[in-house]
């Protein structure tokens, strides 16, 4: 078992996450005739990964250079979309900025990329034969997420997760050369688990914007409904609802676990990192419980490193309980 004894790390609300891309996507038309070379664009993406997610940056060292660069490009584009969707600072401009970002992706598909993240992604997509529709679906789901959102049941949540993180997951699998159907299925399960983990973590940010990823039928089991949740939910009931959602998500991680074992080679190492990172974050979510209403637990390098060491000592397969 993974042991975590430190207090939950909480990010201050309303501040930009470290290394946030914070793009002003309408700036893309700028630069006086200078364009981003592929090399410089990949450097930019790698810098974003280093700044935004040091854990992932470490894992990227394990995989071949070309794949690592392509993953950095995917990450940078997704990070912009994610920041625009989530960060409070962008709220006055969220919809138009996300739409511009999607348009710049469409431009990139037509060889007209201007933003460095898009230049790198366009190159990676042609190199690894990535279906543009997958990225498009992800960006569309971000636009959908930028407004109020709620679901009737877990099936709907999972479907949404599949078009969001799931689409990106398929892009990543394509870059890693893992396109066997069973691997793709497990990857989709992993994407769903990661999506739900992140959305549970972001409860405090999402609620004020009327985004609720705990579906209505789940809330009803604990005597809650959308309206109570948006106002002042009783913390006991909410804790139980979160705890059961966490347990449900834990099962999805277990379903996805064969991906880590079956991927093989460097992909196993990378996917193990993602899987363990997701599980650790889920554990932090579980610990936060109803405190998620006003805090957003984060995964520090330290916590992650300790988790990895713990997992290493107990051997990875033993983590699945």
């Amino acid at each position, binding site marked *: 078992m993974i042991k975590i004894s430190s207090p939950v790390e909480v990010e201050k609300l309303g501040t*930009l996450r470290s290394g*946030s*891309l*914070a*793009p*002003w996507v*309408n*700036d893309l*038309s*700028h*630069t*006086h005739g*200078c*364009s*981003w*070379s592929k*090399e*410089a*664009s990949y*450097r*930019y993406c790698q*810098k*974003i990964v280093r*700044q935004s997610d040091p854990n992932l940056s470490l894992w990227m060292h394990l995989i071949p250079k070309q794949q690592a660069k392509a993953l950095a490009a995917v990450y940078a584009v997704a990070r912009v979309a994610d920041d625009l969707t989530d960060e*409070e*600072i*962008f709220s*006055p*401009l969220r919809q138009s900025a996300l739409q511009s970002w999607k348009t710049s992706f469409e431009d990139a598909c037509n060889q007209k990329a201007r933003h*460095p993240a898009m230049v790198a992604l366009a190159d990676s997509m042609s190199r690894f034969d990535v279906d543009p529709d997958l990225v498009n679906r992800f960006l569309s789901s971000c636009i959908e997420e930028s407004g109020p959102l709620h679901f009737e049941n877990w099936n709907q949540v999972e479907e949404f997760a599949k078009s969001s993180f799931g689409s990106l997951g398929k892009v990543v699998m394509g870059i890693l050369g893992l396109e066997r159907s069973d691997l793709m299925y497990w990857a989709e399960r992993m994407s769903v688990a990661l999506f739900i983990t992140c959305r549970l973590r972001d409860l405090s940010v999402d609620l004020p914007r009327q985004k609720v990823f705990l579906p209505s039928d789940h809330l009803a089991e604990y005597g809650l409904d959308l309206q109570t949740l948006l106002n002042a939910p009783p913390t006991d009931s909410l804790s139980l609802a979160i705890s059961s959602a966490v347990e449900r998500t834990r099962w999805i991680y277990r379903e996805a676990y064969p991906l880590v074992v079956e991927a093989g080679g460097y992909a196993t190492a990378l996917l193990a990192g993602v899987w363990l990172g997701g599980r650790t974050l889920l554990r932090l979510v579980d610990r936060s419980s109803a405190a998620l209403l006003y805090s957003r637990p984060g995964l520090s390098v330290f916590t992650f490193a300790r988790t990895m060491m713990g997992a290493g000592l107990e051997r990875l397969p033993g983590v699945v309980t």
Partner: protein
Amino acid sequence: MIPVDSIDYCRDVLRRSGSTFAMAFKVLPPHQRDAMTAFYAFCRLVDDAVDESGDTQGARAEVARWSDRLDKIYSGKPEGQVDLALGWAVEHFEIQKRHLELILEGVAQDISVRTYDSFDDLYEYCYRVASSVGLVCVSILGELDAELELYAELTGIAVQLTNILRDVGEDAQRGRIYIPLQDLEAFGVSRQQLLEGREDEALDDLFRFEVARTRHYYNMAQASLPGGRQHELFFAETLRETYLKLFDRLEQFGVRLDSPKVSLKKSEKIGIAAKRRLHPGTIIAAMGRRSRLYRHHHVGGQSHG
């Protein structure tokens, strides 16, 4: 050869300005140091002439006069001391006339324009007043190509946005608003509120947004320069890092209309410069440059300047 009287005159301008550049330029090789000094003197004199001109009309006349002087420099007929030194630098380092003209356009724009509607407009202004300076500097410090052009442009934008955020209160008191009016509107901040110095949550959000945008430009500027060239351009990188540190501090304390001007201590600036100058990569790059110069002088049989 650079005319001795001219460069002495430029050095004097630099010394009298009290700028820390006087010390910073000392780490450069002699030719680059002289060219940067001449370029600094040009910028200083243009600025002073406009500041002392009294009114808008006078300022415009000064800009026009400097524009004529540039024409003469580029047609090989420089007149004043600074013109002679700059003429040498222009020839020696292939400084593009367009980049110097942009500086004059920026100064002229600063005289007449008091607000900017969109970020597009502000970007153009930043490009003229700051990226142009960066473009001339990298022409002197390295070989200007597409990579360096992008680096100079983005660094200039980041630096100027930092200046704008640092001086936002002071500028508002002078009736100037550099933050795009479209942004003000999006965040529900009125022009009047900014001019009157009334701070509230909306203004805070607006400033945090502008800070985030500036960070984005620093990120892009840093990424645009390949690792190897960072050492070749250690001086430009020192300037960028100094501004980045200033920006970090600004971000840390938060942009305020009434807060004292954020600045760096001299020791901090020296620390950044020393770290860059003494980096093994910089030393190796300098050795490479010296050996290229040696070959050029002694093996190729040609001489600079």
